[in-house]
């Protein structure tokens, strides 16, 4: 089963993402801060990690940089999840090497398709 880890500190946002993704048949894991997110990623080796850029301990960029150094996660795709305006986030997301960026609040109709597209890219690779 495809595993997705969601690192998101805001309960309302996390609940919404879970409600949209649960019916899609993914195995979902969650973490509410950077440290537990890094820990869970190493334990679960997910296929895709959704990372909220604004986390309370370390921010999403630092999480990503740490996870990219984990050999076992070499084939995992990382997608930023943020309320930052796309134009503000674009260069940072690109330079840090995320595989994609999804704006918050998520569009509940588009979101499953966005997730599928990142996962299919991962499988193509």
């Amino acid at each position, binding site marked *: 089963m495809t595993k997705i880890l969601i690192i998101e500190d*805001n309960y309302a946002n996390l609940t919404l993402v879970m409600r949209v993704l649960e019916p899609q048949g993914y195995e979902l894991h969650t973490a509410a801060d950077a440290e537990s997110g890094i820990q869970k990623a190493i334990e679960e080796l997910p296929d895709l990690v959704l990372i909220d850029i604004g986390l309370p301990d370390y921010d999403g960029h*630092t999480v990503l940089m740490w996870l990219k150094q984990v050999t076992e996660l070499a084939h995992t795709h990382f997608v930023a999840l943020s309320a930052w305006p796309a134009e503000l986030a674009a260069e940072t997301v690109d330079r840090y090497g995320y595989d994609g960026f999804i704006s918050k609040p998520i569009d509940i109709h588009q979101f499953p398709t966005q997730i599928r597209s990142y996962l299919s890219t991962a499988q193509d690779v």
Partner: protein
Amino acid sequence: MRLVPAPHLSMEQLAAAYNEARVDYIVPMPLTVNRLRHYINIYDVDLARSCAAVERIGNQEKILGLGMLGVRTGRGWITRLGVLPSGRRRGIGRSIMEHLLRGAAECAVSVTWLDVIKGNTPAHELFLNLGFIETRELIVARRPPDYQAQSARTGRGHVHNVRTYNREGALALLEQRRGRPSWLNEIESFRKAGDLSAISLATTQGGRGWVAFQVSLLRLTRIVVEVIVGDPAGVCAALLHTLHSYYPTQDAISENVPADDPVWPGYLQAGYIESFRRIEMVREI
């Protein structure tokens, strides 16, 4: 609605309210309870003069907003101001600000500073209405780790007399800065920060300077560059390349680089990107 001093609430309540207030901000920057405690300590926040707006709903008191006041010799600093979505458009932000400014006046400070994220128009307009004037724009810059060791190649060839400093040495260098740092980067902040280091060097073009920083397992923070002699951008780039050749796996954050500082192009040359800007503002009491 009434204002209560911040110590009337628990640190958990303050952190939760702050995070909720900023959940839809351009740059939310949430905090854990420990990080809030650390922030209060490092930036000399006077909790007794900080406050929260609360409202009784049924048997429960709900926090609608909060704001904090930092106090250092002769100057104050307003920070962590936020109004929860449920409390907006009721003048709560202004009430909190007026309370904080009264607190600053009681501390015999002559000026009060603050910085607002560029693009946060409602807050910016409130501060202008309260008599704050803009002083400059401050850049928050980031740099991803350098896996290809670009800095190792670029940084070492054109520098000599590279010297490293421990915490005391770094603080001694920071005392010598010529420009006016923002509140976050004032010497008082660094004196309370742990794991400080610094590197100084000379360039083959005759430049000299130093970079101070805080190092942790995951990242470099509190990065401050001072160019003593030479081309500011070139010496700055040499300092940062050298720094990152020593710490190739750390993410890097430099907060509040003045946008008009001639060293800023050196940050760009060394691989930094502008994450967002703050507008620094000041008001005489």
